């Protein structure tokens, strides 16, 4: 049987799936990127390999998405290298055919995708500021000395969430410290933080957009029941979260790899190869482009970052 690998390499976590020809997930892996996408992907491939029988499943194509999609795509010889928006939309559509709104809050990104009849009609991403994303919540959790995984449950116990200004991480933090010193209880503050993440998202990323039901909430922050409940309260609509919500990007690019109908031999042994990346500053013109060169076992695979052809000759 044919199998397709999809890998989503985000800033915080790396997700991988193998699907069969019926778009069903037959293996999945989810772990932290820890600033080393190459190593993370090697680990993901190892985990995926353990879950399938290589005698039966034959991997014929790979798709990558996420911020390290190009690097990993080159490394694995991917047939599809796709941006996160498209990958997420396609992955989600395969499980929820009628989805109208996808809310996605990840480690440093948040995005909204609006769909109609299975076609993306509008989307938005946060600007480069990470206010109201996962990294904001985990830094506040650290300050409060609580595991970020417990945030949601604690938030649900609060009856009077505190108002916290979440427009900017720096202001939110000083507001939070101030409220703590004033004597607000911790659970009210945590509930307030969850509310402010939802409010901040709706005011910024989803600004001016009409959120139609069914609404699906994805990304790492969707695991936080406090934020999910906050969204439901503000929107007065049911918000769906999926156990596999974090895998949608990986699923989406695996489906794209299948639909592209281009097959390229793939071996799990690629994880045994030595990959090296280096940055070279091209001095060919005053632009001084930083060219990234990727090498496999000492041989150049590809390079990018150059604005013109001069940059492509680096070894």
């Amino acid at each position, binding site marked *: 049987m044919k199998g397709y690998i999809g890998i989503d390499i985000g800033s915080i976590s790396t997700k991988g799936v193998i699907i069969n020809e019926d778009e069903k997930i037959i293996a999945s892996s989810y772990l932290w990127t820890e600033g080393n996408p190459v190593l993370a992907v090697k680990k993901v491939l190892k985990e995926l390999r353990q879950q399938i029988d290589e005698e039966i499943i034959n991997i014929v194509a790979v798709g990558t998405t996420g*911020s390290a999609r*190009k690097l990993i795509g080159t490394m694995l010889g991917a047939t*599809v290298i*796709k*941006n*996160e*928006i*498209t990958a997420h939309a*396609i992955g989600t*559509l395969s499980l929820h055919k009628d989805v109208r709104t996808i809310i996605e809050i990840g480690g440093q990104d948040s995005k909204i995708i609006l769909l109609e009849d*299975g*076609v*993306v*009609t*509008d*989307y938005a*991403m946060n*600007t*480069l500021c990470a206010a109201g994303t996962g990294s904001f919540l985990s830094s506040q959790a650290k300050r409060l000395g609580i595991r970020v995984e417990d945030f949601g449950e604690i938030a649900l116990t609060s009856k009077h969430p505190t108002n916290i200004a979440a427009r900017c991480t720096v202001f939110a933090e000083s507001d939070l410290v101030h409220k703590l010193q004033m004597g607000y209880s911790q659970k009210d503050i945590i509930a307030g933080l969850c509310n402010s993440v939802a409010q901040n998202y709706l005011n910024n990323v989803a*600004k*001016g957009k009409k959120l139609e039901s069914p609404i699906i909430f994805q990304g790492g922050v969707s695991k936080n029941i406090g934020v999910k409940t906050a969204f439901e309260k503000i929107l007065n609509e049911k918000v769906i979260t999926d156990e596999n919500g974090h895998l949608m990007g990986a699923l989406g690019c695996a489906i*794209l790899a299948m*639909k*592209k109908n281009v097959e390229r031999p793939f071996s799990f042994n690629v994880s045994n190869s030595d990959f090296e990346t280096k940055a070279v500053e091209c001095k060919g*013109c*005053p*632009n*001084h482009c*930083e060219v990234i060169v990727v090498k496999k076992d000492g041989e150049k695979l590809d390079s990018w970052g150059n*604005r013109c052809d001069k940059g492509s000759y680096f070894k």
Partner: protein
Amino acid sequence: MKTVGLPKGLLYYRYETLWKSFFKALNVPVMVSEESNLLLLEKGKKKSIDEACLSLKLFIGHVESLKNKCDYVLVPRIYSLEKDEQVCTNFNCLYDLIKNVYPELNILNYNIDVKHHKSEKKAFIAMGNTLGFSKLKSKKAYAFAKSQEKIEKEKKEQNQNIKLKTNKKKILILGHPYNTKDCLIGKSITDFLSNYPVEIIYSDIFNEKLVNKYAKKISPKVHWTMNKELLASFMYYKDKVDGVIVISAFPCGPDSLTNEMILRKKANAKVLLLTFEELNSNIALLTRLESFLDMLKGGIHL
């Protein structure tokens, strides 16, 4: 004959034909600075305050690169182009700013302030006078330059109208021409788009007689002349194209106001807003552009 240097930034993109034709009629050789590049931006950044917008930093870099290479560097001062309207304060202060940064530089200046009856024509005659030409000669040169500018504009409009009629997907690049045409800003986007089967429509190619009519559709009174033109162009083209990419340099006061107006009044138009600040990595930019193009294609495409 003395050479006039034209810094390839800010107003250059608005007045290129007018300037070049005026100097050509007077037989004054001109020298245009090189295309924007990172080294030039670095030079500009060193000489500007950190609050200056990216476009102004680039402009200073262009002036720097012309220094010592020509006899004059053209830096106009524009206070107002229409009665009861204003242009960005950068254009109000440009001459004084450059004069302060480069006290030794020989600046060729002209001053337009329609609010106080200082027209473009008067300004060009005065500029001709600085270069030692008689009033009559400058007047003739200005008339010639104006006619060339008109021909050029009409030609561009005609070309754009042909592009609008094609069956390809059309994308409007909306923004100040000094941003949309700059090598480090808008050109990186149009270069990317040229790999796709799309037709690029520029917001600055737009019949000026229609500006007031279309600007009124979005707001009864827009105080900033150049942004009024952008809004009018947006209202005119938005239903004629498949998508709009709005390009801004950070921080821009007038743009922050009118971009917000566009986002609120876009209705069904597909708009992607891209703000440029430091220009080191373009991965975030490519993600947004790619997904925008995927959306315009509609459906699931590879």
